[in-house]
């Protein structure tokens, strides 16, 4: 593992982990934010309506 390898790995993994942690933090601390967030499960295409 070269210094360049360490640098790229730590920068890449650190960035995506930090970004995800920040997003989850924002979703949790922003009042009512989860009410405006959607997953596929919340979307009612005709084929999932029973």
């Amino acid at each position, binding site marked *: *593992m*070269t210094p*360049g*390898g*360490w640098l*790229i*790995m730590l920068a*890449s*993994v650190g960035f*995506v*982990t930090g*970004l*995800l942690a*920040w*997003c*989850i933090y*924002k*979703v949790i601390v*922003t009042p009512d*934010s989860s009410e*405006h*967030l*959607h*997953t*596929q*499960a919340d*979307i*009612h*295409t*005709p*084929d*999932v*309506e*029973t």
Partner: protein
Amino acid sequence: MIALAICFVLNFVLIYRGLSKGIEKFCLFAMPLLVVCALVVLGRVLTLGTPDPAQPDLNVLNGLGYMWNPKTTDGSFMQSLMNGQMWLEATGQQIFFSLSVGFGIIITYASYLKKDDDVALSSLTSNAGNEFCEVALGGLITIPAAFIFLGTAGVAGQGTFDLGFKVLPQVFETMPGGRVVGTLFFFLLFLAAVTSSLSMLQPAIALLEEGLGLGRKASVAMLGFITLVGSLFVVFFSKNLMALDTMDFWVGTLCIFLLATFQTILFGWGLGIDKGMEEINRGASIPVPRLVGYVLKYVAPIYLITIFVVWLYQQITAEKGNYFKALANEQVAQLSVGFILVVAVLFMLFIAQSVKRWEKLERQEQEAKR
């Protein structure tokens, strides 16, 4: 073949019975569990050390180095950066495909959102989650583990998808409770794959139901038939995976890339960044910088068109891996592209018919109001 049949039947039974919503609700809990499983596997991979003392080079640090070291000494680093095919696949097949950008899924789901739904935070969170799984988990597990167990020769030329299924069982064997974790991991991975394939089928079913006014049974039967013909076509022409590779490239890489480029241009130049940014920022918990608008209007189209032109030039002049040459010389490639065109034309007809039907319904509604 049996596995393919099981997956095929399972997908269409779930769609037909309307159970896809239940599966996806279940996945709200199952997917975080999958990430926990992956973190356990990651912990094991990073503590593997040198599993075979007879081969001291095959250790964790060298495995991570194989994945992350920029190969500057032999010039392959710069060669990769100059390779149009690499950029096209990284953009189309990796980023656009894994985020479902460029094909109907996101547009279909977007049409079901409410006006004030938080598009900005939803998109950023799903992007961040996707990148975390691909870069932090995938990049630290599969390739390093494959290097440790198979060596350089075993890793070279194989896709990470293939490698994962070959290598991860070996990782599970070396950990306490590995069978339980392994079973859970692959089961959850299977569920994740089912939700992905369901989400790819749902827009087409939604079009058939809403656009053509067909019932569930007829819609599922029609889409099932088209999918079955495509699946059998790929199975029948399975020599060297020619049909699969051709369809994967023309649809899964190139068409997605072109459609996403078109959508980017449509956002920046058709809709306009003022209106576009207003849409993004409505109901958003995080302010989206105006710079994003300029990136979408100028940087993204230039980047995407440049990649396409470089790739096109390299493809035309390439001796190896030339998809145009394959299309000109290989009968299976011609049949595969022919199949793609037939399906594309069929769906265009469905869309044209749907538009006619919607216009007629709108006219009837207006007449009823008078």
